[in-house]
C-alpha cells in the first residue's frame, strides 16, 4: 500500500515578488519623514516637564535657542553671548517673518538670564516663543 500525503493542489509558498515594493513603500515613508539633525548641540541641558503642552504644528518656522548648564547659550551652531542675540534673531526674523522661537532651557537656569533673553527677543521683534518641555507622566 502506498502512503501519500493529502495535499491541496494549490501552491503553498507566499508570493515574494511584491516584497521589494512593500519595503520600498516603507522606505519612502521614512525617507520623507526623516529630518536629519543638522546642528550639533554644544550645551548640556535638561528640559523641564509640564502638562499643559502644545504642539508646534509647523516645524519650518521654528528657530531654537539652547541654554545649558553654566549659562552657556547656543544659537545655530555656535555658542553666543547675550548681546549677540538681538542681531542674530533680527536677521532670522527678516528671513522668516513669523518665526517661532523655541527656548530649550535647562531646569536650573536663573530666571534673570531667561528674562534677559526675552528682552533681547522683544527688541528683535521675535514675539512668538515656546518654552520647550517634556510631557509629565
Amino acid at each position, binding site marked *: 500500500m502506498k502512503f501519500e500525503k493529502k495535499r491541496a493542489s494549490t501552491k503553498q509558498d507566499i508570493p*515574494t515578488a511584491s*516584497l*521589494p515594493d512593500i*519595503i*520600498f513603500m*516603507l*522606505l519612502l515613508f*521614512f*525617507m520623507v*519623514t*526623516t*529630518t*536629519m*539633525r543638522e546642528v550639533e548641540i554644544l550645551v548640556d541641558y535638561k528640559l*523641564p516637564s*509640564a*502638562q*499643559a*503642552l*502644545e*504642539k*508646534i504644528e509647523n*516645524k519650518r518656522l*521654528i528657530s531654537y535657542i539652547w541654554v545649558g548648564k553654566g549659562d552657556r547659550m547656543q544659537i545655530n551652531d555656535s555658542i553666543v553671548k547675550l548681546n549677540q542675540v538681538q542681531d542674530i534673531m533680527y536677521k532670522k526674523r527678516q528671513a522668516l517673518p513669523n518665526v*517661532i522661537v*523655541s*527656548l530649550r*532651557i*535647562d*531646569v*536650573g*537656569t*536663573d*530666571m*534673570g538670564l*531667561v*528674562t*534677559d533673553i*526675552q*528682552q533681547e*527677543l*522683544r*527688541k528683535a*521683534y*521675535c*514675539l*512668538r*516663543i*515656546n*518654552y*520647550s*518641555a*517634556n*510631557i509629565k507622566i
Partner: protein
Amino acid sequence: MLRKKRSHEAAIPTSSMADIAFLLLIFFLVATVIDVDTGIGLTLPEYIPPDEIEEVKVDPDRMAAILINETGDVLLDGKPISLFQIKNTLKPRIQSKIGLPKNKKLIVSVKTDRKTRYNAYIQALDQIKLAYFEVRNEYSRSKFGAKFDDLNEDAQNEVKDAVPIIISLAEPEYVKK
C-alpha cells in the same frame, strides 16, 4: 542545447532587491528622529523703550498676581500658596469672569526674581495654562457638548473669546542683579 536557450534571456536577479531595500530601510529607521516639539507657547509683548512706558491702572479685581521668589515659594495676590494649588485657586476666578465683556477678563501676571529657578517658573506657567485649559474644556462641554479640541473652528473661537488666556509677564526688576 539547454544552456544556449537560456542565455538568450537576460534578466537582472531581483531576489536580493528586498535585502537591499531592507538595509536602506533600517538605515532610515535608525536615523529618524521623530521628536515632536512640545512646549508652552507664549507671545511676548512688543518692546517699548523704558522712557516711553505708560503705566495703565488695572482694576485689582481683574488681576491675579503671581510672585515666585528664589526659593520657589509662591505668592498669589499677597497670600502664600503652594505651587500646585495655583490651578485650583485660579479656576473659579477665571470661571467667574466668563460672562463679562472683553476688557473685564482676568489677567494673570507672573513675576519672578532674577535668582528664581527656571523650573519653578515653568511649573507655575504650566499650572496657569492647565487652569485655563480646564475652564475652556468645561465651558465648551456645557455649551457645545464636546471637548475644546474636538470643536470646529467657529466654536473654538467663541470659546476663546469667552475664556481668553491673558498672561502678563511683568517687566523684570533690576534691583536684585
